[in-house]
């Protein structure tokens, strides 16, 4: 009896994981899907073909999101790597850690409300650079916290050996610390990329509707009650990270605990 109950629960969990993607895919291909039909009467590629047509914002949103996420991921990974070293070595470690935690745990929307005027005064509101910098406000602390837990005695010993052999601080980074941390740098970049790829609150506030990332486009379609195109945009958001997550499952979560 308990075994059957376990099988039912496991099936439920598996279904819960796979249904969203299947549902969104069907929805993006649906034509004439009216109440109370359980499945659409017809499936068509015409909505997907819309992506390649000129003048639509889905492809441009996809490319823009890709640019922002890649640049934010790269900058936050390297900035977090260097800052985490500073925090670990600092006498005021707890204070710096507390300050690093703050923006990361804030609601992005409320953070956006508070810092909006700075971006406005610097003429960064509604620009690609402005949105990227705004995203850095939450993703850079994430990357810093990610690496704070990474440094251990092994890295300290490696650094000391390199210094004993005459390496300066830049060389220690260049030839010892960065090569020894390549795996974790990749993991951090990928997770930072995902955080940026999924970001909505700060991007909508700082982007003031001019910088249309994929999440902003989804919301725009939802507001217009254009559910099929919203589903299409949702597919564009979730398919690339799903593929990457499955491909990199082992590397990504090896050190999560």
């Amino acid at each position, binding site marked *: 009896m308990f075994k059957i109950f376990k099988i039912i629960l*496991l099936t439920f969990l598996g279904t819960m994981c796979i249904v969203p993607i299947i549902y969104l895919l069907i929805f993006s291909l649906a034509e004439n899907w009216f109440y109370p039909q359980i499945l659409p009467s017809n499936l068509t590629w015409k909505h997907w073909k819309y992506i390649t047509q000129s003048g639509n914002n889905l492809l441009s949103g996809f490319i823009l999101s890709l640019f922002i996420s890649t640049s934010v991921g790269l900058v936050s990974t390297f900035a977090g790597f260097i800052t985490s070293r500073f925090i670990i070595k600092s006498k005021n470690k707890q204070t710096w850690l*507390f300050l*690093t935690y*703050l923006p990361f745990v804030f*609601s992005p*929307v409320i953070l956006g*409300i508070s810092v909006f005027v700075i971006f406005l005064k610097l003429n960064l509101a509604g620009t690609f650079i402005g949105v990227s910098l705004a995203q850095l406000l939450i993703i850079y602390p994430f990357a810093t916290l990610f690496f704070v837990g990474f440094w251990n005695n092994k890295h300290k010993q490696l650094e000391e050996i390199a210094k004993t052999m005459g390496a*300066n601080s830049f060389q220690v980074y260049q030839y010892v610390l960065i090569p020894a941390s390549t795996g974790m740098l990749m993991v951090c970049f990928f997770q930072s990329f995902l955080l940026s790829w999924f970001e909505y609150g700060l991007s909508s506030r700082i982007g003031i509707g001019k910088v249309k990332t994929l999440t902003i486009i989804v919301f725009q379609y939802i507001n217009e009650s254009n559910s099929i195109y919203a589903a299409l945009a949702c597919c564009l958001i979730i398919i690339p990270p799903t593929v990457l997550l499955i491909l990199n499952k082992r590397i990504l979560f090896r050190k999560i605990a």
Partner: protein
Amino acid sequence: MILESMWLKSKLNSFGFILLCCLNIIPLACGFIYSLAYSFGLVGIGNGFTLVHWKKILFDFHIYFSFAYSFYIAIVALLIIVFTSLFFAINFKKKLSKGYFSYLLHIPLAIPAIVAGFLSFQLFSKSGWISRFFLSLGFINTNSQFPDIVNDDFGISIIITHVFIAIPFFTIYFLKLYQSENLELFSNASFTLGANHFQTNQKIIIPILLKAAFPVILLYLLFLFGSYEIPLLLGSQSYEMVSVLAERKLQRFDLNDIPGGYVIAIIYFLVTSIFVYQSNRIKNNFNHV
């Protein structure tokens, strides 16, 4: 050589400090000071120092209700998430650690809040897929008989959506903790000493997992407390979570509402800061035990 090395070292350390200041401390401090100044009428539409906006917000029942409502959503969702994930991680650890299920479990991690909110709306609304399914089974005769799950006052759809997003993440997290904390050894020792499965889980595995995951659980509570996209899409008109309320106040056409939005932002800032400070203290106490 020594001088050059010291100079480079201090330069790199300074660079870390400069980055922390430029990308974290200065924007945060500027945002806080500006919000404070706006809420006291010193900048923006104000004509000078005033406590009117603070009094207006602090004597407004809706604000307290919004904070309480956000806390209710966060706590209920978190309790369901943590205990369901624990249940799955403990009872299905072998199935979920390898094979197809381990891959399936990673899929929801690629679903952002906005997509989850949209999906929940499509599934749970009166004309959604579940309503259609119930109609086809004959459980309901029209869509009006389907219960109000979306945009309801109890935030059921908000809780369901958060639970859906977070259960796979916490299950994976608990599975990894199970390995890193060597719980297999502990449970074997417990069985050898005569404990049954229930006792082993209750006295050893669950306490160790909860203690190890406590900082992450606390941070997730804050994340749920400040969530925006999901309550924006699925929340009710009458009860709003804090982020939605603050954003709405700032987007109104009535300019007099803007300082109120900044007051809420400051209260949220203070509540979150106290929470982070306390959770850091608890975490440090845990580490010292």
